[in-house]
């Protein structure tokens, strides 16, 4: 039981760490790199580029 609670805590802590990391990336401006790639047709993805 104790082990389960601990490992659930691990999941929650990792999820929070993920949010924090994503926030750091957004702050660095990584989201605009993702956006710019996603709004142009990705020639590599479709097998042309």
């Amino acid at each position, binding site marked *: 039981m104790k082990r389960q609670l601990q490992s659930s805590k691990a999941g929650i802590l990792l999820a929070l*760490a993920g949010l924090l990391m*994503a926030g750091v990336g957004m702050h660095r401006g990584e989201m605009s790199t993702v956006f710019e790639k*996603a709004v142009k047709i990705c020639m590599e993805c479709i097998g042309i580029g």
Partner: protein
Amino acid sequence: MDKRKDAGSWNRHKIQAVWALLTNSYLIGFAQGRIYKGSLKNLCLPGLSCYSCPGAVGSCPIGAMQAVIGSWNFKFPFYVAGFLLFAGALMGRFVCGYLCPFGLFQDLLHKIPFPKKIKTFPADALLRKLKYVILAVFVVLLPMVVVDILGQGAPYFCKLICPAGTLEGGLPLVLLNESMRSAIGWLYVWKNALLLLTIVASVLIYRPFCKYICPLGAVYSAFNSVAVFRYQLDQEACIGCGACAASCEMQVDLIKHINSPECIRCGACKRACPVGAIHFRQAGKSRQSNTTGL
């Protein structure tokens, strides 16, 4: 039991289909051969879902990760890695079972009748490690190391491997745009050959792309045993009949490893268990006191 199994799997497919439609709901893109350019594309989707699909309203996390790693100004993708950490820590490969359009595509292909479906083969276990190599080499290393004079790396997984990009982006866009049709070359042929191979293999083997190739499945697999939503086995209730393992199309032996990295949380084992010994567990809650959560 088979009827129950079928009804359960179709219920899951309905959820997968609704999710695939919601996340690819820019239907005008299919009519006009163009892609959505709105602000939702800032956001990653949890499943493998090509952002060059005319209907896509979000970004593929694997494509996004390569875009950031391969950009000249960033090398570590905090935003995408953080998103994957968040989604993985909450759900693990539940994403694969429910929230991935390419997973649904393979599920449906596997329903096509064929006299002899392949459950396993001698190199199966070894091949399952391939997805981790593909993640390390094509998603991380090559875009980081093989760069042009501006310091930019290409998305090598998308370019050389991803059949989801060919299916969701390559086929509709090339069919709908004459200028693109005139630009196709060996790479397009190669990627279509890989898509065809994936389709044929999916009829014979359950989810071959997820088992052997998918780098996103590789990422989420690392979280299956710590994810907030995961399985637990009630060892007191379990009678060791093996019905769960026999029902599992991913060939997970649940009694040995209830949260195996290969489990996509499809729920077939839960439905097959005659004594209801497999549960979804939630953070901090346990329905039975004598259970094994790892």
